[in-house]
């Protein structure tokens, strides 16, 4: 079958998802149930994010996909291709050029602007899940703002490890009301969530959508005497010298030599293109030569 509806999903499904998105935007941090559809890819591939993107894309949009910060992983490439084919939209690897960015596990380093939309792929939307397995009970806890348990988890972390050990999917309080799972982004990215762009979260298998309108208050949970620490890396990026970005450790030879480089590949390349070169870096033209 080659004649898809625009962005693959039929109009009725997209309307249903848009209604869920609008509701989610009206109640920041609240998980809205939606009837997740089968997508022509496995659940682990971010079908929730893909459905949100499909319901949000217009023919004029420029679409970008990142997977752990990179535009060139198999996963990112296939989702990008999927929408090139089914929606015929323009795509870009440049954060500032994209109007819709679908992401798995990262927020781009380049500050997002008004008019942009960031779509997160979410595996487990319920931040209380590991503490309270009963869905009826977690819903009630959200409804009644009964969040003592969330701090119990942080307490246990400190009691066991001397510090809050949660490094990914670090829970946040949204607009002083709902505790939310920011998806498995590193806690380094948490402070960026107070941003100018719209943030939409889609969990396919769990059939939940939630959202943050622009400039929503997002506070990482902590204790007064163990304040939230986004933990910046100790090194600059070996390729572009950036000292403000999230770094991945890369092993560069079979002697186990390590190097730390930006996980956001677009950010790193843009910096090198404008002459910021780290200790191991080269101009991107030469890299691609």
């Amino acid at each position: 079958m080659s004649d898809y509806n625009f962005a693959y999903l039929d109009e009725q499904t997209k309307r249903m998802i848009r209604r869920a998105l609008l509701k989610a935007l009206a109640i920041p941090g609240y998980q809205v149930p939606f009837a997740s559809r089968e997508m022509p890819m496995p659940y682990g591939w971010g079908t929730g994010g893909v459905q949100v993107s499909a319901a949000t894309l217009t023919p004029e949009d420029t679409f970008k996909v990142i997977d752990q910060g990179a535009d060139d992983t198999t996963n990112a490439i296939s989702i990008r291709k999927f929408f090139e084919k089914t929606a015929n939209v323009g795509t870009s690897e440049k954060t500032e050029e994209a109007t819709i960015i679908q992401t798995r596990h990262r927020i781009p380093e380049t500050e997002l602007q008004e008019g942009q939309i960031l779509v997160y792929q979410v595996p487990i939307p319920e931040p209380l899940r590991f503490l309270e397995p009963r869905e009826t009970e977690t819903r009630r806890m959200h409804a009644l703002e009964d969040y003592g348990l969330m701090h119990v988890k942080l307490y246990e972390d400190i009691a066991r490890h001397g510090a809050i050990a949660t490094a990914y999917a670090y829970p946040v309080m949204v607009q002083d009301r709902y505790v939310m799972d920011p998806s498995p982004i590193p806690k380094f990215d948490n402070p960026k969530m107070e941003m100018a762009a719209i943030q939409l979260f889609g969990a396919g298998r769990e059939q939940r959508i939630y959202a943050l309108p622009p400039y929503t208050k997002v506070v990482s949970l902590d204790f007064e005497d163990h304040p939230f620490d986004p933990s910046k890396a100790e090194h600059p990026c070996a390729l572009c010298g950036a000292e403000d970005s999230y770094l991945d450790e890369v092993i560069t030879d079979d002697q186990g030599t390590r190097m730390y480089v930006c996980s956001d590949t677009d950010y790193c390349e843009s910096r090198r293109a404008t002459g910021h070169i780290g200790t191991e870096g080269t101009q991107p033209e030469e890299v691609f030569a």
Partner: protein
Amino acid sequence: MTPLLSVKNIEKRYGARIGCTGVNFDLFPGEVMGIVGESGSGKSTLLNCLAGHLAPDQGSVTYDRTSTGPVDTVTMAEAERRMLSRTEWAFVHQNPRDGLRMGVSAGGNVGERLMAVGARHYGNIRETSTDWLGRVEIADSRIDDRPSAFSGGMQQRLQIARNLVTGPRLVFMDEPTGGLDVSVQARLLDLLRGLVREMGLSAIIVTHDLAVVRLLADRLMVMKDGNVIEQGLTDQVLDDPQAAYTQLLVSSVLQV
């Protein structure tokens, strides 16, 4: 004096079966009320109606809330009722597993209520937890152990600490010493009695055990088939029972 809890004409049915019916009493600040009766007589049903865990089909339960004065806890919003149950009330279950988080350390179990009402200083929470573990005779060194590593008696003491840490005014207990060895029971009773006196707690205690009642309760209610058949001062009821059923119960002819 305003009663702390005023119970009027409470009834709870399970379909056609009566859980409890026509229950009336006032509990005054600092008083401990015992509820005894044979299995199936409606003790737990009544207690759960009073504590807001079950919605009664009839009647009112008026609680003298610190901030506002008397409020009907049956008709209040669930959010308010939950707030009461983690601040001014406490509930001790017969089975500690129902009242503890088995996957959370002892310190976390005790600290949960503090965090639920807004405590956000780890050091202070830990200090208060340590203090409370001490008060229920659990060594500091066990603070990071999970309750699954504790004996039944320790688990029950931990449950008590977890409940009392926020300084509640009214404690509901359903067979708090049930399922424990006799010697462990005695120690727990001693501890409970000390805490009740020291903190000036009001309490409603459901039990099969008349010894528990003798030791802890100022007043006593006897239930049978969902009805309260006799109530009064504990010594009076036990030493001079009026209802024929109570006479049997006290003379130990009936095994309750």
